[in-house]
């Protein structure tokens, strides 16, 4: 029993070590790669940005509009009792920008792009394509991981901003349509209480989430074992682990902001 727990712990530590090493390796190639004349090709970063970014727009907008709508209705239910329905506008905007939009966007992208990354890299691993790259003296981290990492790092905050806007639009629909708040007043109230720091704390979170999704997706993909079944397992693992880490890191970052009064 004790030895079994020991084995599990060792497995976790090994996994953690592997992820950290990949993280260091990515930074090595981003920072020092250009000095060696070894850029990750701009074209492949662009391709990945299109893949993780553009193709996720619709689903992100969809999720955040409806979240905005639900949030507006739920807060209206509370605020009506106090006769403060107008504040729906600022409540929706602040909770979206600080919390819901970064997290929900990250979860959507983890489910969509993170899983696709680990499926693709996993397939490349089990069909010896990764080994072929290494044999050709092409470093897989530089060639495959860095473009995906940079693409997610840039696109997730962009998608989050889009999600903020979509969520505010959702709240606006409820506020003006069903609560009969004057449209101009709604927008004024939204921006009166929404501060710049509410937006950038959300964006800081989404940078962190972007790194998590890329790192876990790539790590699980590159460490896939055993054929098509292994690819399936790696994909599932990458989504589950990304979800857990996103929630965990969200909690940690929120706590840091809370206690440092940002």
């Amino acid at each position: 029993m004790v030895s079994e727990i020991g084995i599990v712990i060792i497995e976790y530590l090994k996994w953690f070590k592997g992820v950290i090493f990949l993280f260091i390796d990515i930074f090595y190639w981003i920072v020092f790669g250009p000095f060696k004349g070894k850029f990750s090709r701009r074209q492949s970063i662009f391709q990945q940005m299109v893949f993780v970014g553009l193709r996720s727009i619709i689903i992100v907008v969809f999720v955040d509009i409806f979240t905005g709508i639900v949030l507006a209705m739920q807060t209206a239910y509370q605020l009506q009792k106090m006769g403060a329905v107008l504040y729906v506008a600022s409540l929706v905007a602040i909770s979206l920008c600080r919390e819901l939009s970064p997290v929900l966007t990250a979860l959507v992208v983890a489910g969509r792009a993170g899983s696709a990354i680990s499926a693709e890299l996993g397939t490349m691993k089990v069909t010896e394509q990764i080994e072929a790259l290494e044999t050709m003296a092409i470093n897989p981290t530089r060639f495959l991981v860095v473009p995906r990492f940079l693409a997610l790092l840039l696109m997730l905050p962009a998608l989050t901003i889009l999600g903020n806007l979509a969520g505010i639009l959702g709240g606006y629909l409820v506020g003006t349509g069903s609560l009969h708040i004057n449209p101009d007043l709604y927008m004024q109230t939204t921006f009166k209480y929404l501060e710049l720091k509410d937006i950038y704390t959300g964006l800081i979170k989404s940078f962190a989430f972007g790194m998590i999704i890329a790192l876990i997706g790539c790590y699980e993909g590159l460490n896939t074992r055993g054929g098509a079944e292994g690819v399936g397992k790696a994909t599932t693992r990458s989504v589950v682990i990304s979800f857990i880490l996103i929630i965990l890191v969200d909690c940690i970052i929120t706590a840091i902001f809370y206690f440092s009064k940002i």
Partner: protein
Amino acid sequence: MSVKECKAESIISLRNVSKFFQGKTVIDDVNLDIYCGETFVIMGCSGSGKSTLLRLMTGAIRPDKGSVALKGRDIAKISSEELDEVRKTFGMTFQYSALLDSLNVEENIALPLREHTQLAEEIIKIIIKMKLSLVGLRGYEEYYPSQISGGMRKRVGLARAIALDPEIVFYDEPTSGLDPVVGGVIDKLIKDLSVKLMITSVVVTHDMHSVFEIADRISMIHKGKVVEVGTPEDIRNSKNEYIRQFINGSPSGPIDFFREDIGMEDVLDL
């Protein structure tokens, strides 16, 4: 480099190399020397460890015991940058081609050229055309690996392997799955490359026809051990029971197809 000068040095040498996978001995105390400019054939049954031996030679995996030296340098002792420098002088074809799915034929062959040279795009295009015509696939530049047959993929893999005009080419079953005519063309190509360009070739195959066609020296491995190394003449006249059985392809002999622990009788009993 003249032929004689070249032959004297061992370009790849394996000393007491063993490799274990999950406690199973896959390569068992192998000693081999491959000399510059020769075509060295490794033959053996399915699962005998041929691909693993190639992967040890290219540094894709490290030996658990013993040492592998490429051009006189132990791969366990050199840095990954130095290993990459050595690898740029290699070409390798894989048993299942291992082309990048996301790139088309042209981009696959261009990959080592774009990564490791500063050649202009027009020159790269010309090189691709040359290499593709060597393997008889001109006109397939725009196809993706999923759109061409397994044999064609294999030939694209070969074109990719020789894109950088390597000094050593490793071939993992280059003719298996090809029709006899194309197989013959590939055999001739391997031979031409080694004779005309002095490329050292290491070929894994169990195609007996091509073995005697291309080999300067042949080694037979069985269950991770080297059974014998010799010239095609030596092998043809060998008294070794394993080699006799392998060459003749007879089902009975020292190479037991059925696992010892599960006798044929047990299977039939069910």
